[in-house]
């Protein structure tokens, strides 16, 4: 697993052709809301429990 594969998977999931260019100013105003963080944590916990078979 390398950076290219992760980038490819991310672009595919988001249906993008290339990664967006976000500058530092964009991030300074960005706050991750509680419901988004909760969704992230729930997926994290679920991925530890649920496994998928390989090919």
């Amino acid at each position, binding site marked *: *697993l390398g*950076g290219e594969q*992760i*980038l490819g*998977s*991310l672009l595919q*999931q*988001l249906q993008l052709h290339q*990664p*967006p*260019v*976000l*500058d*530092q100013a*964009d*991030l300074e*105003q*960005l706050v*991750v*809301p509680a419901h*988004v*963080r909760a*969704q*992230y944590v729930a*997926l*994290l916990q679920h*991925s*530890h429990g*649920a*496994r*998928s*078979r*390989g*090919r």
Partner: protein
Amino acid sequence: RFSQHFREVAGRFLVSEANTHLLAFGMEQRLPPNSELVQAVLRLFQEPVPEAALRRLRRPGAPRVRVTVEWLREREGSNRTSLIDSRCVSVGGRSRCTREGSEELGEGRRAGQGRGRSPGRSRPLTPGSVSRDPLAPPPSSAHRLVRFASQGARSGQGEPQLELRTLDLKDYGAQGDCDPEVPVTEATRCCRQEMYIDLQGMKWAENWVLEPPGFLAYECVGSCQQPPEPLSIKWPYVGPRQCVASETASLPVIVGIKEGGRTRPQVVSLPNMRVQKCSCASDGAPVPRRLEP
């Protein structure tokens, strides 16, 4: 012949109709624990067709019929069938059979549809219909002449057989997680090794991927023991056993998405990013699942 590599289970006909036979094999306790089923060969024996019956067909050459083998499975209260093999067989032709008088129905990969599955209580392998060959000339009743030898046949010979070939995963499987104290070499047995992916260090992820900063992905390293040479020759259907990821988990990430001049966070789940388990598997074959006793 009940050895590690070769197990044979006699079957019995449950139901026989004009064109269809239901055949069941008792699989309980047949497969050793921690073993992998790599091939199943079904042997059906055809009873000789009386010469007089063949003559009555009044056709030149040996008539052919199509024999279809299906696997009947009960799942969630309903029956599901999977095609194992379908082929034309000559009726009364002397060259129709192998020298033992059997046809090996189901090549390795197809037979492997049942590979690695736990032998359930009622999961018979079922030879299915015997019907006319659609390519044959229409006026044929040759399929009526096909009779499979059944259990209790004369001299006890010819009952259906299911030949199971297994590998002991103690020798042929992976070993779990690698020992971090021991460097990985070519001789290392297949194992799961820690591999940290640093997302913060990747230029494309800068200011885009908000969480996580990195994650443990793991990788499968090392080699797998190959079956002994005679077995490899016997099993031409599968490639060499390789150390591969057999179970993976997804990775959730939080990314920043720019919409209408504003940036908002979004959660995305990336499949198959973290290796949960490594196994030894033959190329092109389904990844085995450990069998329960």
